[in-house]
C-alpha cells in the first residue's frame, strides 16, 4: 500500500470511523474539516513515528507539516532527504 493511502486509511478508520475513501481528499485540512481534534494530533504523530520509523521533533509539530495527507507526505519526503 502506498504511503498516502496508508495515512488516509489510518485517518479514516481512526478519526472518522469510516471506510469511505471518498470522504477525505489528500488536500483537505484535517483540522478545518474536523477530521482530527486537539488530542488527535498526538495520535497522528504516534502513528507516523511507528509506521514510518521516524522521530517527529517538537518544532516539526506544526500544521504546515501535518494538516493534510499531502502535507504529511511532503514532510516525510523532506525528512528522509535531509537524513539521507
Amino acid at each position, binding site marked *: 500500500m502506498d504511503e498516502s493511502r496508508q495515512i488516509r486509511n489510518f485517518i479514516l*478508520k*481512526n478519526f*472518522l*470511523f*469510516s*471506510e469511505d475513501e471518498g470522504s477525505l481528499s489528500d488536500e483537505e485540512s484535517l*483540522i478545518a474539516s*474536523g477530521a482530527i*481534534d*486537539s*488530542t*488527535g*494530533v*498526538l*495520535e497522528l504523530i504516534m502513528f507516523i513515528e511507528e509506521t514510518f520509523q521516524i522521530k517527529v521533533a*517538537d518544532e516539526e*509539530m*506544526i*500544521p504546515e507539516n*501535518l*494538516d493534510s495527507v499531502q502535507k504529511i507526505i511532503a514532510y516525510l519526503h523532506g525528512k528522509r532527504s535531509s537524513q539521507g
Partner: protein
Amino acid sequence: MCGIAGTAGRFANDDSIKAVMRSMIGTLHHRGPDGYGFFHDSGIALAHARLSIIDLVSGDQPISNEDGSVTVIFNGEIFNYVELRAELERSGHRFSTRSDTEVIVHLYEDMGLEFVQRLNGQFAIALWDARLRRLILARDRVGIRPLFYCVVRGRIWFASEIKALLAALPQLGRLDPFGVTQALTFWSPVDPSTAFEGVESLPPGSVLEFREGVPVQTKPFWDWDFSDESREAEPDVDAIAAELRELLIDSVRLQLRADVPVGAYLSGGLDSSGIVSLIRGFTSAPLRTFSIAFEDSEFDESEHQREMVEYLGTDHTTVRCSNSDIGRAFPRLVYHAETPVVRTGPVPLMLLSATVRAEGYKVVLTGEGADEVFAGYDIFKEAKIRRFCARQPDSKLRPTLLRRLYPYLANSPVASTAFARTFFSQGMEFIDSPIFSHVPRWNTSRRACSFLSKDWRAAVSDRDPLSWMDSRIPARVARWSPLGRDQYVEAKTLLAGYLLSSQGDRVAMANSIEGRFPYLDHRVVDYAARLPSRLKLRVLDEKHILRRALRGLLPDSILGRGKQPYRAPDSRCFFEDGQAPDYVEDLLSADRIRSAGYFDAPSVGRLVDKCRAGRVVGFSDNQAFVGILSTMLVDEYFVRRNPSDVSIPTLAAI
C-alpha cells in the same frame, strides 16, 4: 429532599387515578424512602415521597393552609424558613407544623406568584390553589432540584424525574433526536429540552401556571445577571473580600439547618476546602467529611485531601474507586440520570453518596458552584487568551500563553503551540457572540454526532446546535463583559444541565442523599456577579477574590493551588484486556445498534474496536463512546421497557 409527582386537568377523583399516582411515586422511592403522602380532589392529584430532614415529626406532605384552599408538595429546602415564619406569624398566619414547607403555603396566600422571590433555597414546588383552580410549578434559581412536565390532551403531568411521567404515560418513551444531539454536544439537553419527545424540563428560576383550558404560561423570576458589574477603577479589595467572607459564612450557617447531622465533601481543591473551613471556623457543627480517591493517578487528588483532613482535623472517610468500579456502576448511573451522558464523572459521586448514606448521613455540603460564580474554570482563561490572540492574529508570541492551560492533562491539547493556536482560533465566526468561549469545547464534543444514523442525522439536519444555542441566549447578554458572558453560558448549560443534574441531584438522590451548595446561595451569586471581572479572573489567576476571602482559613498550599477540574477515567473503565462487561457487548453489538436506529452500526463498531485496543486517548473519542453507551442504556430502561417494570440496576458483573 424528596420526590414529587402529580397531574391537573379534567378528570374524576376515582380509584384509577389513585393507582396511577401510586405507580408514579413508586418510581421515585429512592428520592424519598421515609414515606408517601397523597392529595386527591376533583381535577387534581399530588403525590410526595419523603426524605425527612426538617421537622421529622409533623413535616409530612402535602401541607395545606388554614382553610384548605392552598395545598403544596415540594422537593428541597427553604433555608430561610425560620426568618420567613417569624415574619408570617407577625402578620397573623397560624402554623400547624414546624416544617419549611408550610412557609410556602402562607407566603403564597400573601404574595401570589411572587412568593418565590422570598425563598432562599433549592426547590421544586407544586402548589394547588383550589379557589382559582390553578396549579403552580416553581423551580429554584440555578436548577438544583429537577422538575419535568408534559401536557397531554389538555392535562398537565409533572414529576421530579422523567421515569415517573413514563410510568403514567408509557407513550412518552421515545427519544428525541435533537434532545440527544444536544446531550452529545453540550453534555446535556438544555432546558426546557430533554432527551424525550414531548417531555419538558421547567427552566431554573421560573414559575409555571396551569389552568384548565388556558395555555401553559412559564415566567422567569430570576436569572444570572452581570449587567451591574462594577467598572470601578480601584475597588477596595480587602473590604470586598471581608464582605464576601461574611456572606459565605451566613450561607453556610443557613445551609447547615437540618434536624439530622450534616456532612461535607472534600475534594482537596479550594472550593470544598473553603466550605469545610467555614463550617469549622464559624459554626459549632461537627466536621464529618467524605472524599473520592482514584486508582488511576492522573485523576487522584488524595494527597491534597489528606493535607486538608489533617489541617482541619475532620472525621474523614475516603471511597476508593477503580476503573472497573466505574464500568460496573455505569448502568445504574444512567438509570438515575435518565439522559445520555458523555463523561463518567458522575459514577464515583454516586458511589460516594452510597457510602455517606451507609455512614448514617442524609445531607452533605459541597463546593459545587464556586467555579461558575467566581470564574474558576479553564474555559474562562482559554476564552480570555483566545480573545487576546484574536486582536493580533499574526502574533507568534500570544498563543504561547495557551501553554499555561491544562497542565494536569496527560494528553494535553496544547502540547504543541502551533496546533493549539490553530484549534483555538476556530469559532472566530462567534467572536462577538456570548457562546464564543464554548465553541472549542462543543466542537470537540459534537464529533460524537457523526456516529448518528443516517435517519437521525437527517432528522436534525436543519438545526446546527451551535447556531441554535447562539440564537437562544438573551440579547442583553451580549452587552455584558466578556467574562460575564462566558459565565452566563456556563451556568445555563453545563451547571444547570449536567453538574447539578446528572452529576448532582441524580447521583446523590440515587442513595437518598441531599446535596447543598453554599456558593450557589443566590445572595452569593448576585454579589459575585456585580464584582469587576478582574477580581474574579485576575490576569490568569482564577477565583482571585474567593482566595482572598478564604485567606487565613486554609493552608497556603491549598489557597495557591491551581484548579484541577474533577474528572474520572472514561472508556478505559469498560475494557479490561479487551474484555467488556456483558451489557456493553450486548448494547453495542451491531444488531442492537441497528435495531435501536439511533447510531450507525459500522462506525460504532470501529470506535468500540479502538477503545477495546486501548488506543483512545482524546476527549472526543472518549465522550463519543460514553455518549453512545449511555444513549443505548436510556433506550434499554426507558424505551424498550417501562420504568414501572424496571428495578434499579445493580452493579454489573465484569
